[in-house]
């Protein structure tokens, strides 16, 4: 560790340096000496985000996707499960712009209805992973010592099993599969990454002066964690969560593609891509549309994650 020079401290050390608070908590970088009223990390980030075209585009896209997922009937009047075998693998005709899949179902309507499974699994898994990983990581870092050792080893155990592999084994031993069980499978093996990020963030914050001050004033452990540490340590977790959301959607599609995720009674992009692979040579359009829809959705969440990271962690820019 480079020691700061003891004789002549650099001028900056006299001011509370934002970096002292934690890796990703540059509180009040919004030019405090100019206005005299420092903006919080969050309003600072929001200020940046509103002006970031990437954020606006991806946020609008995600909003649109959520509307499609919740109200698919707004966008198509065709039933995705109404299939006419005679139309199998035919190209686009008026009224059925994307054509028909192998079973003769309307691809456009299947693409619209497939959004629900992806978005639902993505949001469910991300919520679960942030809750499980966040709590475990925060407790490990806050209580340190034996608690940390035990919780960190438990995290390592789940981290040591590849995510896709673990999810497959879990789902295989489950008698039925739906959006909830698929989400649970991904969640169980997906939380360790959040736990590690959370642990690192809390460790970097918990030695800060304001924590000591709160303790001196007699605040309880829970209050210190909730009111002082978490708000300053949550930023990197939010970044990881946003980016992971896209990855979880890919994972759900991969599981359905392997025939081990959602059952064929649930319309999903991964399942449709799996169906399309058999007729790839004769009818590539059947594979194209669900793939493009899936990729755009993941891209939207990735772009959002990138924008959020830039806003919350200006150091990386």
């Amino acid at each position, binding site marked *: *560790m480079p020691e700061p020079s003891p004789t002549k401290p650099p001028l900056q050390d006299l001011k509370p340096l934002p970096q002292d608070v934690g890796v990703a908590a540059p509180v009040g970088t919004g030019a405090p000496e100019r206005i005299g009223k420092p903006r919080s990390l969050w309003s600072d980030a929001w200020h940046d985000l509103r002006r970031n075209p990437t954020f606006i585009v991806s946020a609008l896209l995600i909003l649109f996707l959520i509307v499609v997922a919740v109200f698919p009937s707004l966008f198509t009047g065709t039933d995705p499960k109404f299939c006419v075998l005679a139309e199998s693998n035919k190209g686009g005709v008026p009224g059925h712009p994307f054509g028909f899949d192998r079973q003769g179902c309307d691809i456009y309507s299947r693409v619209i209805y497939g959004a629900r499974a992806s978005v639902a699994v993505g949001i469910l898994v991300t919520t679960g992973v942030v809750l499980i990983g966040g709590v475990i990581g925060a407790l490990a870092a806050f209580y340190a010592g034996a608690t940390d050792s035990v919780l960190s*080893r*438990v995290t*390592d*155990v*789940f981290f*040591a*099993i*590849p995510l*896709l*592999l*673990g999810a*497959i*084994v*879990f789902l*295989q*031993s*489950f*008698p039925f599969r739906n959006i909830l069980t698929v989400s649970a499978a991904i969640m169980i093996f997906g939380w360790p990454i959040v736990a590690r990020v959370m642990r690192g963030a809390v460790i970097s914050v918990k030695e800060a002066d304001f924590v000591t001050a709160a303790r001196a004033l007699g605040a309880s452990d829970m209050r210190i964690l909730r009111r002082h540490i978490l708000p300053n340590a949550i930023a990197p977790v939010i970044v990881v969560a946003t980016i992971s959301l*896209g990855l979880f959607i*890919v994972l759900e*599609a*991969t599981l359905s*593609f*392997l025939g*081990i995720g959602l059952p064929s009674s649930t319309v999903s992009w*991964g399942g449709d*891509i799996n169906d399309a*692979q058999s007729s*790839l*040579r004769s009818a*590539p359009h059947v*594979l194209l549309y669900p*793939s493009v829809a*899936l*990729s*755009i959705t*993941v*891209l939207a969440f*990735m*772009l959002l994650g*990138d924008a959020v990271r830039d806003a919350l962690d200006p*150091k*990386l820019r």
Partner: protein
Amino acid sequence: MGTYVLRRLLQMIPVFFGATFLIFYLVLGMPGDPLASMCGERGCDPATAVALRAQFHIGEPLYIQYYEYMRGIVTFDFGETFSRRPVLEVMRDAFPITIRLAIVAFVIEICIGIPLGLIAGLRRGKFFDSGILMGTLLIISIPIFVVGFLMQYYLGIKLGWFRPTVSGEAPWNELLLPGIVLGTVSLAYIMRLTRTSVVENIHADYVRTAVAKGLPHRRVVTVHLLRNSMIPVVTYLGADIGALMGGAIVTERIFNIHGVGGTLYQAITRGEAPTVVSFVIILVIVYLIFNLLVDLLYAVLDPRIRYA
């Protein structure tokens, strides 16, 4: 250094047993008769059923089953598949193929990912940099099976540059296309990580010092800047080896490769417990060893890091 390695090795012990027990529990310990899920709808023939019951000590508590199974593994007795083939033999067939596949992917990741990431980092904000950032994001967003099908279709079938499927022996040249597919996503991550790390370090004091000393530009970039920027990249690469071996499930399925992923997937869907548990145990060991190696590499890359 010695004590650090020892401590890490000791920490690996509970992780190893925890991870293997977890898989063991998921495969054998879930409620219901494990034989029912193992043998599928037709049910086992009586001889297999008896053999399986004996092999896994079914009916006894799970921890005894686990203990007996692990005791067998110490003597390289990994059990038998449903067709009475030793799992060790299956592993001997499957692992070399996937190791070759992973090496192809790994070499592509390093040889393309790091240089492109470095160039992007050095030209931050320029056209090349934005192109890399956008392109990698696009690659990450397209699921690997879509990439696989597209490459198989265009490069393998339409243009005929590669064999679209891999034969049983899986020689190196046939594994080139699957290796590219397997490595694409990691390649994109490597580029982004290298770029971010280079951007962070480019204004570091030691880089300025090296420039001020009058060192040639080439040396500053390769020895001072790049070497110090490698830490996050090496971390990712280390974790990636385990993921490449286990995550080859999709790639191996598309290209019909009978490696670890293909065998494992078949075993899981059939409920062939000995194969699943044994393969996962090996994968966990691989993961643990490479993680340790990565941690030790840190000290080589960054002289400020010393292990007490």
